[in-house]
């Protein structure tokens, strides 16, 4: 089967739905491809509240947030393919997908929006030593088991890593009757949101050990406990201070990786820091007509930001499909300077209007100043009480003032 459209959106989570709606609003014929049996993506398993404060100005659960977009999609002519997995993508925007309804589907699109989200780093990826028993799961899998299937995966739980899903699951499993012994974080700071540290750990008296790591897991076929130890400046465990905790479950919240495996056969440039595409302010990648947004581009803390970013990408994709968008001849690089881990977009088209630059810092800084420079001028300089890696920040630039490559850096 062959399907032709102006814009194909890969992934029907929050990013994909917002991108599809934005493209539709521009009059594009949109195809939205989702591998699961329903739209909403990972939001469907995030039954806690805290979504939508920025986008809707009210506090929603994940499924509620997703549902608002599902209803909007239902009001449009957007064609949705469920249970359909995109198998290949080429630079000339030809895709193949597999669907239980149509078999192999060939898609030819004027523009492509990548919105595949991210996956969790695993025990294997961090080469976690010890046995490999039942009881070691990613926090997201435990979340799905708990909130969708209705089962807990452990009774005495330790969480390695302080990513937001891990923190959320610390609270969730506690509420469901499990005992969460502690959270162990390799770094001297959390990679999650401050509000989650407060609401999910401190409010429940769950301790967090910073600068610690799990050294090995014991037990077979079920986990019986684990050893953990403080780490030195080299982040290697100090084994003489190793301690044992009895537990039947270790949840991992040790990082999220944009799922860009589909790009193998394309020439989309990938940024090594984000593991997502290099994009301009309209979220176009290095391959013309291919756009990226949401967690497949860079991992966000808040779905509200994902929706906004996806709307930018979706609208730009429709413009591209209609021949109304092409990158300018002059483009500036956005560089991450001292104290800044990454800044996105990485490219700016010379022109008019405003552009938001999102960035993350590489450590916890108190009273730093974020300084943005371009063409030898300081475009902005803002003092902040605290900046932490777990919180994405942004600055807004007036594009007319950008006259050369842009650098974001911190001044202490």
């Amino acid at each position, binding site marked *: 089967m062959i399907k032709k459209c102006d814009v194909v959106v890969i992934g029907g989570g929050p990013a994909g739905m917002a991108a599809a709606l934005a493209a539709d609003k521009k009059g594009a014929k949109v195809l939205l491809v989702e591998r699961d049996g329903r739209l909403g993506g990972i939001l469907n398993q995030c039954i806690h509240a805290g979504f939508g404060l920025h986008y809707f100005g009210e506090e929603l659960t994940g499924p509620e947030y997703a549902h608002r977009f599902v209803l909007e999609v239902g009001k449009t002519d957007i064609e949705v393919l469920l249970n359909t997995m995109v198998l290949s993508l080429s630079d000339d925007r030809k895709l193949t997908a597999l669907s239980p309804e149509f078999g192999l589907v060939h898609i030819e699109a004027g523009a492509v929006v990548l919105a595949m989200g991210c996956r969790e780093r695993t025990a294997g990826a961090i*080469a976690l030593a010890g046995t490999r028993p*039942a009881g070691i799961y990613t926090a997201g899998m435990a979340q799905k*088991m708990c909130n969708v299937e209705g*089962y*807990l995966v452990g009774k005495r739980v330790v969480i390695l890593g302080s990513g937001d899903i891990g923190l959320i699951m610390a609270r969730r499993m506690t509420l469901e009757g499990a005992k969460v012994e502690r959270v162990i974080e390799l770094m001297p700071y959390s990679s999650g949101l401050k509000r989650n540290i407060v609401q999910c750990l401190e409010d429940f008296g769950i301790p967090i050990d910073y600068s610690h790591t799990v050294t090995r897991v014991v037990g*077979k076929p079920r986990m019986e406990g684990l050893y953990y130890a403080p780490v030195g400046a080299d982040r290697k465990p100090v084994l003489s201070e190793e301690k044992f905790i009895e537990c039947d479950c270790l949840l991992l919240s040790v990082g999220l990786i944009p799922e860009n495996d589909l790009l193998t056969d394309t020439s989309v440039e990938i940024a090594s820091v984000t593991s997502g595409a290099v994009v301009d302010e309209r979220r176009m990648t290095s391959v013309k007509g291919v756009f990226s947004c949401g967690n497949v581009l860079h991992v966000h803390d808040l779905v509200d930001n994902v929706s906004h970013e996806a709307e930018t990408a979706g609208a730009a994709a429709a413009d591209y499909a209609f021949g109304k968008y092409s990158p300018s001849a002059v483009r500036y690089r956005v560089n991450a300077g001292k104290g800044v881990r990454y800044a996105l977009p990485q490219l700016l088209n010379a022109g008019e209007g405003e552009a938001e630059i999102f960035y993350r810092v590489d450590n916890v800084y108190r009273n730093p100043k974020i300084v943005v420079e371009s063409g030898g001028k300081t475009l902005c300089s803002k003092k902040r009480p605290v900046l932490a890696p777990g919180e994405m920040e942004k600055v807004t630039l007036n594009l007319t003032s950008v006259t050369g490559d842009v650098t974001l850096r911190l001044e202490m």
Partner: protein
Amino acid sequence: MSYDVMVVGGGIVGCAVADRLARLDLSVILLERDDDVASYATRANSGIVHAGYDCEPGTAKARFNVRGNAMMWNLAEELDVPCRKCGSLVVAPEEGLEGLEELKRKADSNGVVTEILDREGTLKKEPNVSDNVAYALYAPEAGVISPYQLAIALADRAVLNGAEVVTEAEVTAISRENNLWRAHTPKGTFDAKYVVNCAGPEAAAVNGFVGEEVYETEYRRGDYFVLDNTEGKNVSTVIFPLPTAAGKGILVAPTADGNVIYGPTSVPTYDGDTAVTAEALDEIRRSVPLTYARPAFNKCIRIYCGVRTVIGHDFIIRKSDRAENFVMACGICSPGLTSAPAIAEYIEELLVSCGMERRPKADAVTVMPRKLRLESLSEERLNTLVKENPAWGKIVCRCEKVTEAEIVEAIHSPVPATTVDAVKRRVRAGMGRCQGGFCATRVMEIISRETGMPLDEIRKGIGHSEIAVLAVKEADYD
């Protein structure tokens, strides 16, 4: 229930023996301790089909390795098991030439084709050997195979040919009843005229049940890294260092399924210790760069550890001179995987010499039905399959592109897969870079639907490894 032959142990040797005997006009039963065949050494080794150049000439290892290699490729074709005859290189620095020449002499006396290559010749076979590699011993007959898929396919064929495979049936004692051997297991007792002991780490203990020699057994752990399949393109052959007394050394190899492995270590341990240690991982991190120029430890998707069962310096494959109709295969460490088909062939001879009648079964299955894999299907064929069964159009494991239809088939295969790990070993769902993070729950749902087992009884693998331990809102902690 009484059988002609009882095979104790469902590792690679036990499965090969059961498969071979099931094609004769005999009733065969295989008793396996764990929840699935291929659950111990067979599932956690290097998966190398060794050429046979490094075995001491004149040993059982040399004999069975060389014969096993010759049998393997056709066997894999019959059974539709992934394999690649990719050749192997033992690489050495400038001063290692003498060691390679000694290996070459062993190869010659074992009748194994090898060739010593200089650096230029080596680079033609494997562009990514490390800079200090000056020479290599090339063995074109070597390759890789999926060891657990081979054992499972052998067991499946045995079942199709009438054998019975009983899992979670650890033999805890053997008694003599009415001129038959009686095995006592948690699943009841089983009687047979002949017993073949292929019990791997427990083989010495099983010998003891019938008054045979309880061999002193050593166990040696081997730890591995598994790399993402994006690394597969960087490794064309199996790369060994020069062997030492401890074994063949830490290798870099493609796997039959397209990944790459680094390992194994060789550390004395006790039976059942498959915990990976940080020291072992560090040893591999230090060793790999000595032979391979593109180590990519950051592409690791899994680490694992297997245990070798070592008795003296050679395999012990013989019939008992103390217990009637009792045949043993003990101390089957490396190259046990490669040797397995030849060991099974020899065990059949031993049984015949005990008086077992050898009459081929008229309608025995030899060529197994081809397993359909998404990537090898033509568009037309795929569309027809999807039309007949929409499960062919539904990808469950996105990393390895495994469809629901393949998973359902695995669950209902001759040796059924009823755990998440058993499904993973058969169709690779959960073997990819997300390690089942997305698909494990869906695999559980499918197992539950297909078998009628409730979700909280679905296990990861061996023993009490249930994944769902408590229903939400029914928690009864303390």
